């Protein structure tokens, strides 16, 4: 069965340090890939998406993600965490429909 794996359900980072959220998927072909962010009491907002163009994708708020087919990964990074980055992040993969990872809850420590 196709699946999306996000390890580390809770991630703590210090303000100003890099953020790395890992996402791996199981698939025999290259799907479309997305990262969404959900701030407290808000709906999900698209951060970035990969649709078979450049493998390094830049998104909003300084985030970027790199698609690595050989590793079936789509990890999300940001060079320097800001307090406003505290939120839950979902890796989402499109096969015949969207499949969501279980999310990373990011806490930013001042």
């Amino acid at each position: 069965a196709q699946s999306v794996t996000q390890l580390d359900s809770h991630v703590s980072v210090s303000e100003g340090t890099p953020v790395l959220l890992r996402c791996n998927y199981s698939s025999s072909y290259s799907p479309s890939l997305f990262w969404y962010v959900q701030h407290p009491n808000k709906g999900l907002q698209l951060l970035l998406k990969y649709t078979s163009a450049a493998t390094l994708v830049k998104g909003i708020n300084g985030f970027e993600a790199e698609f690595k087919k050989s590793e079936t990964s789509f990890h999300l990074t940001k060079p320097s965490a800001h307090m406003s980055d505290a939120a839950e992040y979902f890796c989402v993969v499109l096969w015949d429909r969207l499949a969501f990872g279980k999310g990373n809850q990011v806490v930013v420590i001042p």
Partner: protein
Amino acid sequence: DVKVTQSSRYLVKRTGEKVFLECVQDMDHENMFWYRQDPGLGLRLIYFSYDVKMKEKGDIPEGYSVSREKKERFSLILESASTNQTSMYLCASSSRGGRVNNEQFFGPGTRLTVL
């Protein structure tokens, strides 16, 4: 500014009640979706619709039904609410783009508690 709205942010119902959750989008999108979000489980697809009066079961349709009488409105119905349906419900919409494969725009969610 594009918008997906949901009728209630918070809802409390009793076991056995019939519950309606309403979702409206103003982007003229063909596709609409209902998910439930539970801690540690991410989002799970309940039902989706790719056109007026069309509906498809998602991954967890049991205990739910939907209605799409107008393009902009997609309703989720709990025929007889149960405590295990206490959850956050998220509505989303997307343009057709071939399949249901475009970016989805999400509403703010309805937190339903069934007592």
